[in-house]
């Protein structure tokens, strides 16, 4: 089946796309929504501009759309982008990285149904520590690009998701109920390399901003 996937740049969207390819589907384009609202309910924003580099590394067309990120209106922008992907690339379905968010999943389901497209959520309800371990097992190089929950702090920015990270986030889950995959927005990630990429992305510069328990790292890629 010809599929497009929603690409935020983070681990979930790319791992979901990877699973689609593993299942024998053809990924024909990636869709990125650039939200101006950093508190968007639908789209995660840190490093999202860098998805162009990721798409290039996958030799995939990137369909990028801007949204003001106003609640519900941003869904219209998403619908337009998916509709464009259907017209331009003749896709039969969409792949998302939704794990727990009924808000995100149900809205994308409605858009896909309206456009007569299949909606695939291969990470749906997946145990989150299992997901982190699967990323390592499958050769995903993922870094943390923002944090937004107590007691997370800027020392986590740029950290690679590895066994040590999983051990630490598990302790934070037990003590502070931090969602280990960050799906509650506790932290965001960016994928520097994965089996879908032809080359690893390299960070040549970074800028850290924020305060208290809300920090983000802007990266410049080679």
């Amino acid at each position: 089946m010809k599929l497009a996937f929603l690409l935020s740049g983070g681990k979930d969207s790319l791992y979901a796309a990877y699973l689609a390819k593993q299942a024998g589907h053809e990924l024909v384009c990636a869709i990125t929504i650039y939200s101006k609202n950093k508190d968007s309910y639908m789209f995660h924003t840190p490093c999202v501009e860098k998805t162009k580099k990721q798409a290039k590394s996958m030799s995939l067309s990137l369909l990028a759309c801007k949204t003001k990120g106003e609640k519900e209106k941003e869904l219209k922008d998403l619908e337009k982008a998916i509709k464009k992907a259907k017209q331009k690339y003749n896709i039969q379905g969409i792949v998302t990285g939704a794990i727990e968010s009924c808000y995100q999943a149900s809205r994308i389901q409605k858009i896909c149904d309206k456009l007569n497209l299949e909606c695939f959520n291969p990470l749906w309800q997946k145990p989150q520590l299992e997901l982190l371990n699967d990323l390592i097992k499958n050769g995903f190089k993922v870094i943390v690009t923002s944090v937004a929950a107590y007691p997370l702090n800027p020392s986590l920015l740029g950290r690679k998701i590895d066994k040590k990270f999983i051990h630490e986030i598990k302790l934070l889950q037990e003590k502070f109920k931090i969602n280990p995959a960050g799906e509650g927005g506790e932290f965001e990630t960016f994928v520097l390399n994965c089996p879908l990429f032809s080359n690893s992305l390299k960070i040549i510069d970074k800028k850290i901003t924020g305060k208290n328990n809300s920090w983000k790292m802007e990266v410049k890629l080679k």
Partner: protein
Amino acid sequence: MKILLIKTNKESFHELEFVRSIENILKNNKIKFFTSHYKDLKKQDLKNADKIIICGTSLKDNHFLKNIDYFKWIENYNKPILGICSGMQIISKIFKAKLKHRQEIGLKTLNFKKEFLGLKNKKEVYELHNNYFDLPKNFTKFTDSKIPQAIKHNQKPLYGTLFHPEVRNKNLILEFCLF
């Protein structure tokens, strides 16, 4: 106790969403299970199972309704069955209920007027369907919603939920498996 999970999805990639999510609940609770697609079911599978869960499938997939003859065994099966979404539609169709169209997607609050596999009073559930069936004859509806959302056969241990308990009501699945 051995649970048989029956897949109803046409497209195998949907299994991760509609079957794996239930397998994970069973695994986490050390409940033994085996899984088969409805087209691959053997008589021995039905014999070996203590209870059966018929899993859901995607919003656009109604292929199982065209293949309803694969499910004729349900009529004369006496062990407990829980049909989830498409599973409930299959049970309803086998018992000659009428198909209707109504889309419900997302979280919804249902009022369980009688206890249904551990759910009672108001509970939030996750819906994902374009169709439903009228209440089949000899079944009871457990919610006060217009359309049947949770049903049970009046004599047999045959249960159905139109909503997806694997999302917000995981204990319902455990209640079915363990009690």
